[in-house]
Each structure stands twice: as structure tokens, then as C-alpha cells.
């Protein structure tokens, strides 16, 4: 039975080549748009993760605290939510670092007779903790310890940055949603146009005694086939663009900390399922209207 419907669906694809080709093109283009954007978002998300792994707090310890107490504090902090790991930085290490950083102002340090820097802890933040406010809350919490002199965090650019990353993230979600819905509706409407141009044929079928099921099934199968074909073609086109793009970017100037990757196979499968769904939806909307008559 199903086989018969499949055969009829394929026969029909053969009988209306132009119509179905144009439909598949439109689906492919819609998928191209959505998957291009997914490629972009996916890589941007990766990039952001790389940046964010750089967020940390410096906890300055009050002078003269014994090492044992500091270790307890470290243990406490490392169990706070959002903390990835905690590292102890002795005042000696801090001075050495400072000296290295101040290459032009080295004389400043060479002139010292005693190390004026405090011991400190470097607290690395879990990249999953994205809100600046949460980081702030964590800092205040740590500062409340009687061992702690002060907590330094948020180089200004990073603070600004976190806000901006949130806009990026938010717009990416919004845009994905808009693009996805738009693509689904474009596909559905395109199939409606095709349907509209074949309504006479369906009326005839009905008049000679076809059941709703007999009319519907080949359409659904076609919708699914077209969705799958369009989805596949769209992704292949994107892949070609991707390869061209990769070879034209100056990789060295760009790829220190992360490499650009194509959308993962799982997402591709989701895209193709969605485009099949859109194909089916177009049929469903049109057929429901028609069959109600």
C-alpha cells in the first residue's frame, strides 16, 4: 500500500519536473540561509567559549595569614558555584610576573628593597557562568571572608565584553528563530503554490472516487522527498561556500586560539528533518483547506 503511494509520488515528480525542481530550489535556498547562519553561530559560540575561559578573579590575602588557613580558603572557594579552579600565587611569583609585565618600567621594581605585594589567589570562573552580575556576586561572597583583603576582577574591557557577548548570544537566538520560522513558512508557502496549480487534478481525482487518504499520501511523500532533497542540496552548497571561504581566509592571522569548523553532523540531520517537516507542513496546510471543501 505504502509502496503504491511512493510509486505514485515518484511518478508525479516525473510528470511535473519544472514545478518540483523550482520547489526543491526554493527549499534548498531556505536551508542554505538557515544553515549558513547556524555555521556562523556555531563557530561564534565556540569562539566565545574560548574567550570566556579567560575570566578570573584575583583574591588578595591579608598579610601574615598562615599557609594552612589559605589552603582552607582555597578549598572553600573551589566549592563555590561557578568556580572552575583556584590557584595560589605567592607574593614572590606576583612580583616576578609584575616585573615581566613592566618591561619598560623595570627600574621601578629593581629599586625596591622589600616585596610590597600581597599573596593572592587566582580564581578561574566556569565559562557557563555568563552573567556579569553572577561574577560580581561571587566576588562579594569571597570578599566577606576575614582572610581576604580585597578581590579584583573585571578588567573593564571584559566587563563591557560580557555585556556585548550577551547581545550577540541573544540576537543569535532571536535570529535563529526568525530565520528558521521564515524558512519553514517559505517552504510551506511554496508548496502551497504548487498545490494551488494542481488543484484541478485533485478535484478530478475526488470526482472519480478517490478517498482523502489516496489523495493525501502521495502529496505528503512528495513533500518529505522534496524537503529532504532541498535540505541536502542546501547543505552541500553551504559546504562548497565554506571550503572556498576557508581557503581564502588568511588562517594564520586568525586561528590562534580556535579553528573554524563546519556545522556538526547532528545539526545537519536536524536541518534536513526540519526541511522535511516544512515540506510536510506545506502539504498539510494546503490539503486541509482543500479537503474541507
Amino acid at each position, binding site marked *: 500500500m505504502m509502496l503504491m503511494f511512493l510509486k505514485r509520488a515518484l511518478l508525479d515528480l516525473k510528470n511535473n519536473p519544472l514545478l518540483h525542481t523550482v520547489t526543491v530550489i526554493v527549499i534548498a535556498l531556505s536551508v542554505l540561509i538557515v544553515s549558513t547562519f547556524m555555521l556562523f553561530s556555531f563557530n561564534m559560540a565556540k569562539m566565545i567559549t574560548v574567550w570566556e575561559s579567560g575570566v578570573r578573579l584575583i583574591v588578595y590575602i591579608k598579610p601574615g595569614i598562615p599557609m594552612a588557613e589559605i589552603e582552607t580558603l582555597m578549598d572553600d572557594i573551589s566549592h563555590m558555584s561557578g568556580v572552575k579552579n583556584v590557584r595560589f600565587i605567592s607574593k614572590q611569583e606576583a612580583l616576578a610576573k609584575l616585573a615581566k609585565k613592566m618591561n619598560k618600567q623595570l627600574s621601578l621594581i629593581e629599586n625596591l628593597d622589600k616585596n610590597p605585594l600581597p599573596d593572592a589567589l587566582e580564581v578561574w570562573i566556569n565559562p557557563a557562568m555568563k552573567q556579569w552580575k553572577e561574577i560580581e556576586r561571587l566576588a562579594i561572597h569571597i570578599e566577606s571572608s576575614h582572610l581576604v583583603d580585597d578581590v579584583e576582577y573585571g578588567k573593564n574591557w571584559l566587563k563591557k565584553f560580557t555585556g556585548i557577548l550577551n547581545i550577540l548570544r541573544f540576537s543569535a537566538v532571536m535570529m535563529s528563530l526568525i530565520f528558521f520560522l521564515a524558512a519553514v513558512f517559505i517552504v510551506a508557502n511554496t508548496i502551497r503554490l504548487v498545490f494551488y496549480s494542481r488543484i484541478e487534478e485533485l478535484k*478530478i481525482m475526488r470526482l472519480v472516487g478517490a478517498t482523502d487518504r489516496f489523495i493525501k499520501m502521495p502529496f505528503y511523500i512528495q513533500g518529505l522527498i522534496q524537503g529532504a532533497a532541498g535540505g541536502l542540496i542546501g547543505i552541500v552548497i553551504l559546504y562548497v561556500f565554506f571550503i572556498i571561504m576557508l581557503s581564502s581566509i588568511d588562517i594564520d592571522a586568525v586561528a590562534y586560539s580556535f579553528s573554524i569548523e563546519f556545522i556538526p553532523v547532528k545539526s545537519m540531520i536536524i536541518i534536513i528533518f526540519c526541511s522535511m517537516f516544512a515540506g510536510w507542513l506545506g502539504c498539510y496546510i494546503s490539503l486541509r483547506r482543500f479537503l474541507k471543501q
Partner: protein
Amino acid sequence: MGNSAPIIRIFHVYKRYGSQTALADITLDINAKEFVFVTGPSGAGKTTLLKLLYLGEPISEGHIIVDGMNLTRIKRDRMPFLRRLFGVIFQDYNLIPNKTVYENIALVLEIAGHKRNMITKKVGSVLRAVGMEDRMNAYPPSLSGGEQQKITIARAIAGDPKIILADEPTGSLDEDSAGDIMNLLRVLHARGATVIIATHDKELIRSIPARQIRLDHGHLREDTGSI
């Protein structure tokens, strides 16, 4: 003419298209295995009457009972089965332009759920009956008017329907072809089909002695009754 059980009963039926009344207060019975002409001038309501029978248009008022089913009350999912009682020769052919002649006819048999090799055999035989077996793979738009009409006739009889509705079946045919088609319909009638022919071809009506129902402006003007 033999069997007197009415297969079609029409009670006070009206059909209105907007303000236009196409059929007014039609009441009549048609017996199983009858041969009936529906006549009347252009716009009289002949096509409309046939359409109501196979649910091609909804009935505005009144009741039609076909083979025991009340068309006003029939459920959506029974409609296809009602329609399969009929073989309809549509006035405007209603062939699917991008399917071949073979596919157009096979469709009716597929719908009825016939097996593949039975379909092939049956399509061949009805095309032979109307003299079009050599155009099996042609598309309808590439056929002449008369040829398309013959295909429509072949499609109508392919499913061995209980009732044949023929709307102006010889309008585009020359005398000889028309004679052939009428003979074909008479053979099917003799084999037990009810045949209802809508036509204004006086010559055709004269050529066969049969019941005549005459419509005019949607009213039933004359019914000779079974003869």
C-alpha cells in the same frame, strides 16, 4: 423495461447558485437498469442534475437517495464509495493534462484498489472499445476534441460502474463514432448498468427508444416514464 426497484430517488430537489436557481423542485425516480435521456436547451440544468447525483455539487434543498444512501446526510468518508458507483462522462472531459491516457484511466482503477496486472488488462480493453488503443501513451492536450471525448468515455466505463452518467457524450464526435459509442452504452445497459444520458442532440434521442426527462430553466417539463 424489467426491474422496477428505484436505484435513484429524487425528492423535491432544488439547486441554487447564489441567487440563480439551476434546478427547482425536481421529483423523480430512476429504476435500476433503466436507460434515460435528460434533455433540454442550453442552461436547462442537465449537467447540474447529474452533478447532484455523484455529489459534484451540494444539494440546496430536498433529498436524493442513491442505492439506499441519502446524499444530504452522507458522511464525508462514505462519499468516495458513493462516487465509485458512478461512471461519469464529463461534459468538459476533465482529463488530467500531465498524465498519459493510460495513467488517466488507470487512476480510476487504482482508486478502486485493483491489482496491477488487472489494471493493465482493463485499460487496454476499454481503450479498444472506444477505438483509442494506439494513443495509450499520448497526453490529453495532444488529442483532438473527439479523441479526448472517447478517452473520457473509456475512463467512465473502466470501473464497471452500476450507473453511467453521460453528459453530452457525442457532442464532439462525428456520426460514425457517435453511433459506435451509443452501441457501446447499449451493450453496457444490456449487461445491467443504469444509463443516464444528458444531451440536446435530437437525432441521438430519436435513434434509441428510451425514457426521456425534459428540463427547461431548471423545471421538470416532461417525463415520458419507462418505456
